[in-house]
């Protein structure tokens, strides 16, 4: 028996809730369905925090090392071969328990918040059913003990995301956004699946504990050294397998160039954006790399990990640049999310493995944790604002500070946190990332440093333009959000202020051994990153606190560059061109034509020719039995002769 045997309840409760709400969506109306969903999540929340307490403080650590505990629910759900199987099992280790806390906290807050936000929506019950489905899938994803099992939940979070983005399914833009999100991530999942097949083929297991074990790693590395594994362009196929798995992560985590679905995903209800597209699902890619970190780090000298670092760094910069110019507040936050996830990927990419070397890994996970809190908060405030103003666009807002003080203050806290101002949570995690990057590569550090400044700028541009800037006249004076929405905001704001003080490295580390790391306040790196954040905030203050001419001047000063960033570097247009003009028009259409005209045409021609032929030889059908007998006998003789000939 095992202390954590109850753990299967954690994903099970939301699953049952989904089935129940799904089947009764017609009969159980608002607000009962909302209360039910929230009650279920509260149970999950309590179980998760209890698990975290048990794991981190009581049972988890043995001989100075955190244990990986596997709780098997169903062994051999599918047996591919004797060794390769999809087992339904739960893994309990520092990162899965940490994710449990993240998912249950944000999900509970979103459940509570939505009681107010979705009030009087016709799809209220359906919304809670979908939220439960998503929470089930996400919890399953973080707890999965098996690479194939993670893929299963990976697809399920994808479909929950699809259903929730397209929640307002009568709105064509929401429908096409949901379709786009699903198809782009599916495209990435194709690589993920191929990667899984390759990893399974070489690693002879799908189980994380076996795959990450020293014996598997040294076995594969020795194959690579002895050229027993096919290699291509100087890298072994196994490294490509890891890169393919990472491409799956790039799709879900909206890394360049697979990020194009994330901004459009903002068509979904805002609580959904907070839960799925800010705090939980989009960090699945980061979690995946962390899950397989020993493989990424050790195989072929970490070649795949370098790819992770480059993609992460570039995405962080790329998204931050676009975020500078967007007008839709949710889209600013979406690009900000992409940029921050780039940070996390960068942190993993630059990380070492043992003890202090593994600072990047720890920092990436830490940033995932803190980011989930403050980014969910930012989205929920944005939702409250949109709820009050009935618009997503900044120029319809302004001066909301006096109308919505709670929203304003909580937003300010989150904005300070993401900008990296101490003592808010983001400062600690971001600083660790930059420290790790500095030790690894100065260019990557510099990009990260620059992005920190941009982040502070666009976030405060957002803050000032929503809550100060000008005194907009509103048709309906905006109100502060109802108590349930405000509760979620305040709770997350408290978390944002508190979680930075957790000494994270004592719980989460690449080699599972706790180590001690602390901020050196006098370090030029620390001072530098605070200064650049302050510079960003200062610039935003000058340009946006009051209405000024600077924004227009700066925009025209950048000219073409400004237009490129405003249009997101025309990535959407590029994708449209490739899918519609090339794949649909140049591949799919000719195939459909070929099938209808050439292949089918040939069959029809065969039919017509036969008919003509039979016109000519129909005299054979004389109706006389002896004729038929004659034909039959000669036919049989012919067949027999052919057979004997070929023998």
């Amino acid at each position, binding site marked *: 028996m095992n202390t954590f045997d109850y753990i299967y309840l954690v994903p099970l409760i939301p699953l049952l809730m989904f089935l129940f709400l799904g089947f009764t969506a017609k009969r159980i109306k608002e607000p009962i369905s909302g209360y039910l969903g929230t009650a279920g999540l509260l149970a999950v929340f309590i179980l998760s925090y209890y698990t975290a307490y048990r794991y981190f403080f009581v049972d988890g650590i043995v001989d100075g090392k955190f244990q990986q505990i596997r709780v098997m629910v169903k062994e051999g759900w599918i047996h591919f071969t004797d060794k390769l199987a999809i087992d339904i099992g739960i893994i309990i280790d520092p990162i899965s328990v940490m994710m449990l806390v993240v998912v249950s906290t944000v999900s509970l807050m979103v459940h509570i918040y939505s009681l107010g936000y979705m009030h009087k929506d016709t799809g209220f019950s359906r919304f809670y059913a979908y939220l439960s489905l998503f929470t089930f899938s996400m919890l399953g994803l973080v707890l999965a003990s098996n690479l194939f099992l993670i893929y299963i939940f990976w697809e399920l979070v994808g479909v929950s995301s699809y259903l929730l983005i397209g929640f307002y399914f009568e709105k064509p833009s929401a429908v096409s956004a949901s379709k786009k999100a699903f198809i782009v991530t599916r495209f990435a999942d194709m690589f993920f699946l*191929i990667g899984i097949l390759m990893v399974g083929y070489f690693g002879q297991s799908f189980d994380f504990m076996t795959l990450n074990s020293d014996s598997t790693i040294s076995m594969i590395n020795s194959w690579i050294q002895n050229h027993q594994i096919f290699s291509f362009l100087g890298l072994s196929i196994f490294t490509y397998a890891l890169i393919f798995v990472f491409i799956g992560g790039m799709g879900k985590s909206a890394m360049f160039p697979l990020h194009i679905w994330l901004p459009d995903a903002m068509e979904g209800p805002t609580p959904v954006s907070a839960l799925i597209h800010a705090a939980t699902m989009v960090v699945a890619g980061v979690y995946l790399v962390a899950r397989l970190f020993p493989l990424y780090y050790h195989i072929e000298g970490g070649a795949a990990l370098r790819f992770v670092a480059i993609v992460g760094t570039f995405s962080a910069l790329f998204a931050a640049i676009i975020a500078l110019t967007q007008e839709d507040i949710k889209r600013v936050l979406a690009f900000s999310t992409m940029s921050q996830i780039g940070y996390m990927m960068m942190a993993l990419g630059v990380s070492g493995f043992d003890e202090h070397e593994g600072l990047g890994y720890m920092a990436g996970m830490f940033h995932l944790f803190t980011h989930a809190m403050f980014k969910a908060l930012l989205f929920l405030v944005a939702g409250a604002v949109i709820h009050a103003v009935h618009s997503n666009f900044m120029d319809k807002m302004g001066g909301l500070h006096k109308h919505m003080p709670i929203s304003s203050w909580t937003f300010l806290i989150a904005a300070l946190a993401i900008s990296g101002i101490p003592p808010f949570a983001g400062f600690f995690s971001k600083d660790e990332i930059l420290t790790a990057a500095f030790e690894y590569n100065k260019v990557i550090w510099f990009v990260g440093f620059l992005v920190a400044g941009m982040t502070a700028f666009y976030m405060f541009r957002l803050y000032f333009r929503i809550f100060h800037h000008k005194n907009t006249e509103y048709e309906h004076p905006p109100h502060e959000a109802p108590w349930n929405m405000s509760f979620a905001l305040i709770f997350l704001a408290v978390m944002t202020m508190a979680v930075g003080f957790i000494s994270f490295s004592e719980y989460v580390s690449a080699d599972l051994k706790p180590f001690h790391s602390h901020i050196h306040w006098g370090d030029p790196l620390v001072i530098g990153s605070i200064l650049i954040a302050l510079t960003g905030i200062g610039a935003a203050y000058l340009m946006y606190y009051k209405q000024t001419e600077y924004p227009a001047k700066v925009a025209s000063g950048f000219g073409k560059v400004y237009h490129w960033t405003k249009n997101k570097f025309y990535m959407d247009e590029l994708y449209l061109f490739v899918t519609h003009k090339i794949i649909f028009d140049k591949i799919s259409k000719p195939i459909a034509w070929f099938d209808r005209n050439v292949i089918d045409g040939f069959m029809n021609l065969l039919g017509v020719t036969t008919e003509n032929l039979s016109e000519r030889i129909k005299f054979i059908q004389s109706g006389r039995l002896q004729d038929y007998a004659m034909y039959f006998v000669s036919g049989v003789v012919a067949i027999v002769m052919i057979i004997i000939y070929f023998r």
Partner: protein
Amino acid sequence: MDILTLFIVVPVLTVIVLLFVNKLEKARLIALAGMIIQLIMSINLINEYMKARAAGDHAIMLFERNVPWYSDFNANYHIGVDGVSVLMILLTTLIVIAGIFVSWKIDYMPKEFFISLIVLASGVYGFFISLDLFTMFVFYEIAVIPMYLLIGIWGSGPREYAAMKLTLMLMGASALLLVSLFGIYYYSGTNGMEPTFDLMELANRKMDFAAQKIFYPLAFIGFGTIGALFPFHTWSPDGHASAPTAVSMLHAGVLMKLGGYGIFRFIMFLMPEGALFWQDFFLILAVTGVTYGAMAAIQQTDLKYINAYSSVSHLGLVLFALLMINKTAWNGAMLQSLSHGFITALFFALIGMIYGRTHVRDITKMTGMMRIVPFLGVAYVIAALANLGLPGFSGFVAEMNIFMGGFLNNDLYKQAMTVFAVSSIVVTAVYMLRLVGRMLYGPVTTVYTNLPKAFWYEKVAIGILVLFITLIGTLPFWWLQFIQESVDNFIKPLVH
């Protein structure tokens, strides 16, 4: 009478009773009653089967019975079942039942319709229990011929053309198959032994390699045609488009499975060297079918055409898996046969229900159906998600076995082919979500606002199919236990 022969006797009795009624109300009840008996027997068969296996009976085939039938030809009525055929019988029964519920209100010549449907079904049952090539072929033809009447009389659109085309192409394929069967028969008698059609007996005699090389491709194309092997698939889009709903369900759900089943049970088993010789060639056709069918589906706007091309793609995976020749892939092939049977039957049922209301099958002419007929809308979304391989539904578990099996071949060519086949999961998502987005979502088309909601018998039909799609998807190990031992026996001649 043995429990297998009853599977043919009960449909025949049902047909006889049907001859004496005229009213729709009675005809459908009799048809349903007959099939419910079949269902009970199917479940009982599974139960008996599991008992026998648990009691340690490891014979390849259970409940065998061998009665001389046409002794001049040495053709016997030899029947027996193993794990795969037991599941196929269950699939057939469930789909016929769902088909009867879907045809609950058929108004034109109901009696004759149900008779043809059940005659067709009896052929299918016979096919699945046959262990004699000659008997098998007879049942196969019994299953194919009523199709001509069912499409020609109860179909829609250019139904005579479609019926003719379908029947002629399948008959042409049967001719190739027949030639091949005679070849097998003839070559079984070369060492002074009496030639035979008996599957188990033939398995012990080694067929001449040169003959295998000639007869294997004929038989593969013969069975492949009904299994939508590229480029012999073109009967399927037109045939399905014109066929009435229940016939489409039965045809795509069960009859098209006869192809993969026949290749698995008879062709590869009896001509293993031929199979290995032609493996790479047919693999190219199968992979082409998988990607080509999916790509062609993107361009279609008619619901039935979308589904027909989707079937080309998904049944291409069955053939693809069989050609991979390893246990994992073959498990996947059989699972995919079942899975596709339920999913595609669900699609055709839903298409029939929607067409019955709007009289349109063009997805560009309907929007917002989700608001108008929510039950059908939700079911359509489920079918679409199952079809694109969402975990929790049957398509996923089948496809994962297929892809994993393909990749386990220690051969770069086959692994590359697998990668091609995997790409179909993206294209499938494209055409399924496009369909869902166009037809179900978006603003409501006003002319359709007053359409009736789903009726109880429609809900029953959908419920049965969705239930089994999820049962396979969530409990694959239960289904795989039947498939595995059957695959283990039948793959033996091919792997050493």
